[in-house]
Protein backbone atom coordinates (compact mmCIF):
# COMPACT_ATOMS: atom_id res chain seq x y z
CA UNK A 1 0.00 0.00 0.00
CA UNK A 2 1.18 3.52 -0.77
CA UNK A 3 1.11 6.08 2.04
CA UNK A 4 1.29 9.90 2.06
CA UNK A 5 2.25 11.23 5.50
CA UNK A 6 1.87 14.74 6.86
CA UNK A 7 3.43 15.89 10.15
CA UNK A 8 2.09 19.07 11.77
CA UNK A 9 3.53 19.10 15.29
CA UNK A 10 7.00 20.15 16.44
CA UNK A 11 9.33 17.60 18.10
CA UNK A 12 8.81 18.92 21.64
CA UNK A 13 5.16 19.89 21.32
CA UNK A 14 3.90 16.33 21.09
CA UNK A 15 4.92 12.78 20.19
CA UNK A 16 3.23 13.08 16.79
CA UNK A 17 6.55 13.21 14.91
CA UNK A 18 7.85 10.20 16.82
CA UNK A 19 4.62 8.30 16.17
CA UNK A 20 4.97 9.10 12.46
CA UNK A 21 8.60 7.97 12.48
CA UNK A 22 7.77 4.60 14.05
CA UNK A 23 4.74 4.18 11.79
CA UNK A 24 6.89 4.79 8.72
CA UNK A 25 9.51 2.28 9.86
CA UNK A 26 6.85 -0.36 10.51
CA UNK A 27 5.18 0.32 7.17
CA UNK A 28 8.49 0.00 5.32
CA UNK A 29 9.35 -3.19 7.19
CA UNK A 30 5.96 -4.58 6.09
CA UNK A 31 6.74 -3.87 2.41
CA UNK A 32 4.52 -0.81 2.17
CA UNK A 33 5.62 2.28 0.28
CA UNK A 34 5.98 5.79 1.73
CA UNK A 35 5.47 8.14 -1.20
CA UNK A 36 6.35 11.29 0.70
CA UNK A 37 6.51 12.80 4.18
CA UNK A 38 5.28 16.38 4.13
CA UNK A 39 6.26 18.61 7.07
CA UNK A 40 3.72 21.38 7.55
CA UNK A 41 2.73 23.90 10.24
CA UNK A 42 4.83 23.32 13.42
CA UNK A 43 6.08 20.08 11.83
CA UNK A 44 8.78 22.05 10.01
CA UNK A 45 10.75 22.18 13.30
CA UNK A 46 11.83 18.58 12.60
CA UNK A 47 13.95 19.84 9.72
CA UNK A 48 16.26 22.29 11.52
CA UNK A 49 19.89 21.40 10.84
CA UNK A 50 21.15 23.03 14.02
CA UNK A 51 18.77 21.49 16.53
CA UNK A 52 21.28 20.08 19.01
CA UNK A 53 19.61 18.23 21.87
CA UNK A 54 21.88 16.99 24.71
CA UNK A 55 23.74 13.71 24.12
CA UNK A 56 21.35 11.63 26.23
CA UNK A 57 18.29 12.72 24.21
CA UNK A 58 16.91 11.46 20.93
CA UNK A 59 18.23 13.28 17.84
CA UNK A 60 14.97 13.66 15.95
CA UNK A 61 16.47 15.53 12.96
CA UNK A 62 19.25 12.94 12.59
CA UNK A 63 16.65 10.15 12.71
CA UNK A 64 14.87 11.71 9.73
CA UNK A 65 18.11 12.32 7.85
CA UNK A 66 19.09 8.66 8.31
CA UNK A 67 15.64 7.52 7.22
CA UNK A 68 15.95 9.58 4.03
CA UNK A 69 19.49 8.36 3.32
CA UNK A 70 18.98 4.69 4.16
CA UNK A 71 15.45 4.12 2.86
CA UNK A 72 15.23 6.81 0.17
CA UNK A 73 12.20 8.53 1.68
CA UNK A 74 11.20 11.90 0.19
CA UNK A 75 11.08 14.40 3.07
CA UNK A 76 9.49 17.67 1.95
CA UNK A 77 9.27 20.79 4.11
CA UNK A 78 6.56 23.29 3.15
CA UNK A 79 8.23 26.46 1.94
CA UNK A 80 5.69 28.94 3.32
CA UNK A 81 5.46 27.24 6.72
CA UNK A 82 9.29 27.08 6.86
CA UNK A 83 9.93 30.68 5.87
CA UNK A 84 7.56 32.21 8.38
CA UNK A 85 9.31 30.18 11.11
CA UNK A 86 12.83 31.15 10.05
CA UNK A 87 13.94 27.92 8.37
CA UNK A 88 15.73 28.88 5.17
CA UNK A 89 17.43 26.52 2.77
CA UNK A 90 20.67 27.67 1.15
CA UNK A 91 19.05 29.12 -1.99
CA UNK A 92 16.40 31.04 -0.12
CA UNK A 93 18.89 32.35 2.45
CA UNK A 94 21.03 33.74 -0.37
CA UNK A 95 17.99 35.43 -1.90
CA UNK A 96 17.37 37.09 1.47
CA UNK A 97 21.01 38.20 1.72
CA UNK A 98 21.85 35.63 4.42
CA UNK A 99 24.63 33.06 4.49
CA UNK A 100 22.83 30.18 6.07
CA UNK A 101 21.44 26.76 5.40
CA UNK A 102 19.06 25.69 8.13
CA UNK A 103 17.77 22.58 6.41
CA UNK A 104 19.00 19.26 7.85
CA UNK A 105 20.31 16.61 5.45
CA UNK A 106 17.79 14.49 3.61
CA UNK A 107 15.05 17.16 3.62
CA UNK A 108 14.05 19.34 0.70
CA UNK A 109 11.92 22.47 0.48
CA UNK A 110 8.77 22.37 -1.61
CA UNK A 111 5.27 23.72 -2.02
CA UNK A 112 1.87 22.42 -0.96
CA UNK A 113 1.44 21.11 -4.51
CA UNK A 114 3.81 18.26 -3.57
CA UNK A 115 1.43 17.31 -0.76
CA UNK A 116 -1.53 17.40 -3.17
CA UNK A 117 0.42 15.19 -5.59
CA UNK A 118 1.27 12.69 -2.85
CA UNK A 119 -2.37 12.43 -1.72
CA UNK A 120 -3.45 11.80 -5.31
CA UNK A 121 -1.00 8.92 -5.74
CA UNK A 122 -1.45 7.39 -2.30
CA UNK A 123 -3.83 4.67 -1.21
CA UNK A 124 -3.91 6.16 2.30
CA UNK A 125 -3.14 9.65 3.67
CA UNK A 126 -2.28 9.98 7.34
CA UNK A 127 -1.85 13.25 9.23
CA UNK A 128 0.13 13.22 12.48
CA UNK A 129 -0.25 16.08 14.96
Amino acid at each position, binding site marked *: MKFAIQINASPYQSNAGLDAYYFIQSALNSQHEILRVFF*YKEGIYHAFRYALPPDDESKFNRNWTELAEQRGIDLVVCISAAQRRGLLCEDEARRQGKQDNDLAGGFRIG*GLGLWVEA*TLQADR*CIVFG
Partner: protein
Amino acid sequence: MKSYLFVMRRPPNLGNHVQETLDMILTMAAFDQAVSVLFADDGVLQLKAGQNQAALSLKETSAIFNALPVYEVNSLYVEAESLKSRGLAPADLILPAQAIERIKISELMKRFQVIIPD
Protein backbone atom coordinates in the same frame (compact mmCIF):
# COMPACT_ATOMS: atom_id res chain seq x y z
CA MET B 1 -9.45 13.70 -9.08
CA LYS B 2 -10.14 12.72 -5.50
CA SER B 3 -12.72 13.82 -2.96
CA TYR B 4 -11.36 15.44 0.20
CA LEU B 5 -13.09 16.25 3.48
CA PHE B 6 -11.30 18.67 5.77
CA VAL B 7 -12.47 18.30 9.36
CA MET B 8 -12.06 21.51 11.34
CA ARG B 9 -12.35 20.80 15.07
CA ARG B 10 -10.00 23.24 16.75
CA PRO B 11 -10.83 26.73 18.05
CA PRO B 12 -9.72 29.74 16.00
CA ASN B 13 -7.31 32.46 17.11
CA LEU B 14 -4.81 30.14 18.82
CA GLY B 15 -1.83 30.55 16.54
CA ASN B 16 -2.22 30.47 12.77
CA HIS B 17 -3.34 26.87 12.27
CA VAL B 18 -6.67 27.87 10.67
CA GLN B 19 -4.84 30.05 8.16
CA GLU B 20 -2.41 27.26 7.29
CA THR B 21 -5.21 24.69 6.94
CA LEU B 22 -7.04 27.13 4.67
CA ASP B 23 -3.87 27.44 2.55
CA MET B 24 -3.93 23.66 2.16
CA ILE B 25 -7.66 23.68 1.30
CA LEU B 26 -7.21 26.40 -1.34
CA THR B 27 -4.21 24.58 -2.85
CA MET B 28 -6.25 21.35 -3.12
CA ALA B 29 -9.06 23.31 -4.76
CA ALA B 30 -6.65 25.12 -7.10
CA PHE B 31 -5.50 21.68 -8.28
CA ASP B 32 -9.14 20.98 -9.26
CA GLN B 33 -9.86 18.49 -6.51
CA ALA B 34 -13.34 18.08 -4.99
CA VAL B 35 -12.99 19.68 -1.56
CA SER B 36 -15.59 19.76 1.22
CA VAL B 37 -15.19 21.08 4.77
CA LEU B 38 -16.84 19.88 7.98
CA PHE B 39 -16.82 22.08 11.10
CA ALA B 40 -17.33 20.29 14.40
CA ASP B 41 -16.59 20.79 18.11
CA ASP B 42 -14.76 24.11 18.68
CA GLY B 43 -14.10 24.23 14.94
CA VAL B 44 -17.58 25.74 14.43
CA LEU B 45 -16.23 28.91 16.06
CA GLN B 46 -13.91 29.37 13.06
CA LEU B 47 -16.98 30.42 11.04
CA LYS B 48 -18.46 32.75 13.66
CA ALA B 49 -19.19 36.22 12.31
CA GLY B 50 -17.87 39.37 13.92
CA GLN B 51 -14.42 38.19 15.01
CA ASN B 52 -12.02 41.07 15.37
CA GLN B 53 -8.79 39.22 14.65
CA ALA B 54 -6.86 42.32 13.66
CA ALA B 55 -7.16 43.48 17.28
CA LEU B 56 -5.25 40.32 18.26
CA SER B 57 -2.63 40.93 15.55
CA LEU B 58 -3.92 37.81 13.82
CA LYS B 59 -4.75 37.44 10.17
CA GLU B 60 -8.44 37.91 9.33
CA THR B 61 -9.42 34.39 8.30
CA SER B 62 -12.95 35.50 7.31
CA ALA B 63 -11.54 36.93 4.06
CA ILE B 64 -9.95 33.55 3.26
CA PHE B 65 -13.13 31.65 4.20
CA ASN B 66 -15.09 33.97 1.92
CA ALA B 67 -12.73 33.04 -0.92
CA LEU B 68 -13.78 29.37 -0.69
CA PRO B 69 -16.73 29.75 -3.12
CA VAL B 70 -14.37 31.42 -5.63
CA TYR B 71 -12.31 28.20 -5.54
CA GLU B 72 -15.52 26.20 -5.93
CA VAL B 73 -15.38 24.90 -2.38
CA ASN B 74 -19.13 25.06 -1.83
CA SER B 75 -19.86 21.99 0.27
CA LEU B 76 -19.56 23.19 3.84
CA TYR B 77 -21.01 21.15 6.69
CA VAL B 78 -21.42 22.04 10.32
CA GLU B 79 -22.25 19.60 13.09
CA ALA B 80 -25.63 20.69 14.51
CA GLU B 81 -24.91 19.70 18.13
CA SER B 82 -21.56 21.56 18.17
CA LEU B 83 -23.27 24.70 16.95
CA LYS B 84 -26.14 24.47 19.41
CA SER B 85 -24.00 23.71 22.47
CA ARG B 86 -22.00 26.87 21.77
CA GLY B 87 -25.13 29.01 21.57
CA LEU B 88 -24.81 29.51 17.83
CA ALA B 89 -27.29 29.31 14.98
CA PRO B 90 -26.52 29.01 11.24
CA ALA B 91 -27.29 32.73 10.92
CA ASP B 92 -24.26 33.53 13.14
CA LEU B 93 -21.84 32.07 10.57
CA ILE B 94 -20.06 33.97 7.80
CA LEU B 95 -20.80 31.31 5.17
CA PRO B 96 -23.81 29.11 4.54
CA ALA B 97 -23.11 25.62 5.89
CA GLN B 98 -25.36 22.59 5.89
CA ALA B 99 -26.14 21.44 9.44
CA ILE B 100 -25.55 17.71 9.96
CA GLU B 101 -26.57 15.79 13.07
CA ARG B 102 -23.79 14.04 14.97
CA ILE B 103 -25.29 10.63 14.25
CA LYS B 104 -24.96 11.30 10.49
CA ILE B 105 -21.28 12.34 10.56
CA SER B 106 -19.85 8.87 9.93
CA GLU B 107 -22.20 8.47 6.98
CA LEU B 108 -20.93 11.79 5.60
CA MET B 109 -17.29 10.79 6.08
CA LYS B 110 -17.76 7.55 4.15
CA ARG B 111 -18.49 9.59 1.02
CA PHE B 112 -14.90 10.91 0.83
CA GLN B 113 -11.65 9.30 -0.28
CA VAL B 114 -9.34 11.44 1.86
CA ILE B 115 -10.06 12.97 5.27
CA ILE B 116 -7.70 15.61 6.65
CA PRO B 117 -7.90 17.15 10.13
CA ASP B 118 -7.13 20.81 10.88
